[in-house]
Protein backbone atom coordinates (compact mmCIF):
# COMPACT_ATOMS: atom_id res chain seq x y z
CA UNK A 1 0.00 0.00 0.00
CA UNK A 2 1.22 3.44 -0.90
CA UNK A 3 1.05 5.90 1.96
CA UNK A 4 1.18 9.61 1.13
CA UNK A 5 1.13 12.62 3.38
CA UNK A 6 -1.06 15.46 2.12
CA UNK A 7 -2.03 18.78 3.63
CA UNK A 8 -5.40 20.49 3.39
CA UNK A 9 -6.24 21.50 -0.20
CA UNK A 10 -3.52 19.25 -1.64
CA UNK A 11 -4.50 16.66 -4.22
CA UNK A 12 -3.72 13.17 -5.41
CA UNK A 13 -4.18 12.01 -8.99
CA UNK A 14 -4.95 8.35 -9.68
CA UNK A 15 -4.52 7.36 -13.30
CA UNK A 16 -5.69 9.83 -15.94
CA UNK A 17 -8.89 11.11 -14.50
CA UNK A 18 -9.38 10.48 -10.80
CA UNK A 19 -8.53 13.38 -8.55
CA UNK A 20 -8.79 13.35 -4.77
CA UNK A 21 -8.55 16.56 -2.76
CA UNK A 22 -8.12 16.83 0.98
CA UNK A 23 -10.91 19.32 1.59
CA UNK A 24 -10.73 19.46 5.35
CA UNK A 25 -9.18 17.88 8.41
CA UNK A 26 -11.07 18.05 11.65
CA UNK A 27 -10.62 16.16 14.86
CA UNK A 28 -9.62 12.79 13.42
CA UNK A 29 -11.88 13.08 10.36
CA UNK A 30 -10.62 13.79 6.89
CA UNK A 31 -12.98 15.28 4.34
CA UNK A 32 -12.14 14.21 0.80
CA UNK A 33 -13.32 15.64 -2.48
CA UNK A 34 -13.29 13.09 -5.29
CA UNK A 35 -13.53 13.85 -8.98
CA UNK A 36 -13.87 10.75 -11.10
CA UNK A 37 -15.58 9.65 -14.31
CA UNK A 38 -19.20 8.83 -13.57
CA UNK A 39 -18.81 5.17 -14.54
CA UNK A 40 -16.62 4.77 -11.45
CA UNK A 41 -18.69 3.91 -8.42
CA UNK A 42 -17.50 5.50 -5.19
CA UNK A 43 -18.71 3.98 -1.93
CA UNK A 44 -17.80 4.09 1.71
CA UNK A 45 -16.16 0.70 2.12
CA UNK A 46 -17.94 -0.20 5.34
CA UNK A 47 -21.30 0.23 3.59
CA UNK A 48 -20.29 -2.13 0.77
CA UNK A 49 -18.99 -4.63 3.33
CA UNK A 50 -22.23 -4.35 5.28
CA UNK A 51 -24.27 -5.09 2.16
CA UNK A 52 -22.07 -8.10 1.37
CA UNK A 53 -22.51 -9.37 4.91
CA UNK A 54 -26.27 -8.92 4.77
CA UNK A 55 -26.50 -10.62 1.37
CA UNK A 56 -24.62 -13.60 2.79
CA UNK A 57 -26.91 -13.70 5.81
CA UNK A 58 -29.96 -13.46 3.53
CA UNK A 59 -28.69 -16.34 1.40
CA UNK A 60 -28.81 -18.60 4.43
CA UNK A 61 -32.55 -18.17 4.64
CA UNK A 62 -33.56 -21.40 3.01
CA UNK A 63 -34.30 -23.41 6.13
CA UNK A 64 -36.47 -20.63 7.48
CA UNK A 65 -38.40 -20.21 4.27
CA UNK A 66 -41.52 -22.06 5.26
CA UNK A 67 -42.02 -19.70 8.19
CA UNK A 68 -42.85 -17.07 5.63
CA UNK A 69 -45.99 -18.94 4.68
CA UNK A 70 -47.54 -17.67 7.89
CA UNK A 71 -47.04 -14.02 7.09
CA UNK A 72 -49.86 -11.87 5.84
CA UNK A 73 -49.52 -8.18 5.15
CA UNK A 74 -52.15 -5.68 6.11
CA UNK A 75 -54.54 -4.89 3.30
CA UNK A 76 -54.26 -1.28 2.26
Amino acid at each position, binding site marked *: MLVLTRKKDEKIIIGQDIEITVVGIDNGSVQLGISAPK*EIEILRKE*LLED*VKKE*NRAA*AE*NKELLNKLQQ*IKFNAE
Partner: protein
Amino acid sequence: MTRDFGKIEIKEDQILYFKNGLPGFETAKEFILLPFADDSPFIIMQSVNNPDLAFITVEPGNLITDYEFEISDQKEKDLEIKSIEDILVLNIITLKDQLEEITANLSAPIIINLKEKLGGQIILDNHNFSVRFPIFAEQQAENPAQKDEVSE
Protein backbone atom coordinates in the same frame (compact mmCIF):
# COMPACT_ATOMS: atom_id res chain seq x y z
CA MET B 1 -35.94 -23.82 -25.00
CA THR B 2 -35.95 -24.88 -21.38
CA ARG B 3 -33.27 -25.90 -18.97
CA ASP B 4 -33.66 -28.63 -16.39
CA PHE B 5 -33.54 -27.03 -12.97
CA GLY B 6 -34.19 -29.63 -10.35
CA LYS B 7 -37.91 -29.63 -9.89
CA ILE B 8 -38.35 -26.32 -11.66
CA GLU B 9 -38.43 -26.06 -15.40
CA ILE B 10 -37.45 -22.62 -16.52
CA LYS B 11 -37.55 -20.96 -19.86
CA GLU B 12 -34.50 -19.11 -21.11
CA ASP B 13 -36.54 -15.96 -21.53
CA GLN B 14 -37.25 -15.87 -17.80
CA ILE B 15 -33.58 -15.53 -16.94
CA LEU B 16 -32.40 -12.18 -15.64
CA TYR B 17 -28.78 -11.31 -16.24
CA PHE B 18 -26.83 -9.60 -13.44
CA LYS B 19 -23.60 -8.41 -15.05
CA ASN B 20 -21.83 -7.84 -11.72
CA GLY B 21 -23.57 -10.50 -9.65
CA LEU B 22 -24.48 -9.23 -6.21
CA PRO B 23 -22.07 -7.87 -3.57
CA GLY B 24 -20.73 -10.98 -1.84
CA PHE B 25 -21.95 -13.16 -4.73
CA GLU B 26 -20.10 -11.65 -7.65
CA THR B 27 -20.17 -14.84 -9.72
CA ALA B 28 -23.96 -15.30 -9.47
CA LYS B 29 -25.02 -13.66 -12.70
CA GLU B 30 -28.25 -15.39 -13.66
CA PHE B 31 -31.44 -15.37 -11.63
CA ILE B 32 -35.09 -16.12 -12.10
CA LEU B 33 -38.02 -14.77 -10.12
CA LEU B 34 -40.40 -17.29 -8.61
CA PRO B 35 -43.60 -16.45 -6.75
CA PHE B 36 -43.34 -17.59 -3.15
CA ALA B 37 -46.98 -18.47 -2.65
CA ASP B 38 -50.28 -17.37 -4.12
CA ASP B 39 -51.20 -14.85 -1.45
CA SER B 40 -47.69 -13.90 -0.37
CA PRO B 41 -45.98 -10.59 -1.17
CA PHE B 42 -42.64 -12.36 -1.21
CA ILE B 43 -40.79 -13.22 -4.40
CA ILE B 44 -37.94 -15.72 -4.57
CA MET B 45 -34.91 -14.67 -6.55
CA GLN B 46 -33.32 -17.98 -7.44
CA SER B 47 -29.85 -18.41 -8.89
CA VAL B 48 -29.97 -20.37 -12.14
CA ASN B 49 -26.48 -21.81 -11.79
CA ASN B 50 -26.51 -22.57 -8.08
CA PRO B 51 -29.66 -24.31 -6.80
CA ASP B 52 -28.60 -23.60 -3.21
CA LEU B 53 -28.50 -19.84 -3.74
CA ALA B 54 -31.78 -17.99 -3.45
CA PHE B 55 -32.91 -14.72 -1.97
CA ILE B 56 -36.28 -13.85 -0.60
CA THR B 57 -37.35 -10.44 -1.78
CA VAL B 58 -40.31 -8.14 -1.53
CA GLU B 59 -41.43 -5.05 -3.38
CA PRO B 60 -40.77 -2.04 -1.13
CA GLY B 61 -44.34 -0.78 -1.44
CA ASN B 62 -45.31 -3.62 0.89
CA LEU B 63 -42.95 -2.31 3.55
CA ILE B 64 -42.83 1.45 3.57
CA THR B 65 -44.18 4.50 1.85
CA ASP B 66 -41.89 7.30 0.68
CA TYR B 67 -39.19 4.98 -0.60
CA GLU B 68 -37.56 7.15 -3.19
CA PHE B 69 -34.08 7.18 -4.60
CA GLU B 70 -32.16 8.14 -7.68
CA ILE B 71 -30.61 5.61 -10.02
CA SER B 72 -27.34 7.01 -11.31
CA ASP B 73 -26.93 7.71 -15.02
CA GLN B 74 -24.30 5.01 -15.15
CA LYS B 75 -26.60 2.36 -13.62
CA GLU B 76 -29.37 3.41 -15.96
CA LYS B 77 -26.98 2.83 -18.80
CA ASP B 78 -25.74 -0.50 -17.40
CA LEU B 79 -29.28 -1.76 -16.99
CA GLU B 80 -30.42 -0.19 -20.30
CA ILE B 81 -33.29 1.53 -18.55
CA LYS B 82 -35.39 3.54 -20.98
CA SER B 83 -38.60 3.85 -19.03
CA ILE B 84 -39.41 3.75 -15.35
CA GLU B 85 -42.31 1.44 -16.22
CA ASP B 86 -39.91 -1.33 -17.18
CA ILE B 87 -38.37 -1.43 -13.72
CA LEU B 88 -39.10 -3.76 -10.85
CA VAL B 89 -37.59 -2.83 -7.49
CA LEU B 90 -37.08 -5.58 -4.91
CA ASN B 91 -35.55 -5.55 -1.46
CA ILE B 92 -33.81 -8.60 -0.07
CA ILE B 93 -35.25 -10.04 3.13
CA THR B 94 -33.14 -11.59 5.86
CA LEU B 95 -35.05 -14.10 7.95
CA LYS B 96 -34.35 -14.63 11.61
CA ASP B 97 -35.48 -17.31 14.01
CA GLN B 98 -38.04 -14.93 15.39
CA LEU B 99 -40.40 -13.68 12.74
CA GLU B 100 -40.59 -10.22 14.25
CA GLU B 101 -36.84 -9.83 13.75
CA ILE B 102 -37.07 -10.21 9.98
CA THR B 103 -35.39 -7.34 8.18
CA ALA B 104 -35.32 -5.93 4.68
CA ASN B 105 -32.31 -4.33 3.06
CA LEU B 106 -33.55 -0.90 2.04
CA SER B 107 -30.04 0.41 1.53
CA ALA B 108 -29.30 -1.92 -1.38
CA PRO B 109 -32.35 -2.46 -3.60
CA ILE B 110 -32.35 -4.87 -6.52
CA ILE B 111 -33.23 -3.05 -9.72
CA ILE B 112 -34.57 -5.20 -12.53
CA ASN B 113 -35.24 -4.05 -16.06
CA LEU B 114 -38.00 -6.50 -16.95
CA LYS B 115 -37.96 -5.50 -20.58
CA GLU B 116 -34.27 -6.11 -21.16
CA LYS B 117 -33.98 -8.90 -18.53
CA LEU B 118 -31.13 -7.10 -16.76
CA GLY B 119 -30.64 -6.71 -13.05
CA GLY B 120 -28.31 -5.30 -10.45
CA GLN B 121 -28.12 -4.43 -6.80
CA ILE B 122 -27.39 -0.78 -6.20
CA ILE B 123 -26.12 0.68 -2.95
CA LEU B 124 -27.75 3.87 -1.71
CA ASP B 125 -25.58 5.96 0.56
CA ASN B 126 -28.59 7.30 2.43
CA HIS B 127 -28.74 7.16 6.19
CA ASN B 128 -32.53 6.95 6.10
CA PHE B 129 -32.41 3.55 4.39
CA SER B 130 -31.19 0.80 6.68
CA VAL B 131 -29.41 -2.36 5.57
CA ARG B 132 -31.51 -4.09 8.26
CA PHE B 133 -34.95 -2.48 8.35
CA PRO B 134 -37.28 -4.43 10.67
CA ILE B 135 -40.29 -5.06 8.48
CA PHE B 136 -42.81 -5.62 11.26
CA ALA B 137 -41.95 -2.71 13.53
CA GLU B 138 -44.08 -0.17 11.67
CA GLN B 139 -47.02 -2.46 11.13
CA GLN B 140 -47.15 -3.34 14.80
CA ALA B 141 -47.07 0.31 15.73
CA GLU B 142 -49.95 1.05 13.38
CA ASN B 143 -51.93 -2.02 14.18
CA PRO B 144 -51.14 -3.46 17.60
CA ALA B 145 -53.85 -6.08 17.20
CA GLN B 146 -51.70 -7.83 14.64
CA LYS B 147 -48.86 -8.32 17.08
CA ASP B 148 -50.27 -11.58 18.39
CA GLU B 149 -49.90 -13.19 15.02
CA VAL B 150 -46.15 -12.81 14.96
CA SER B 151 -45.38 -13.34 18.62
CA GLU B 152 -44.20 -16.70 19.81
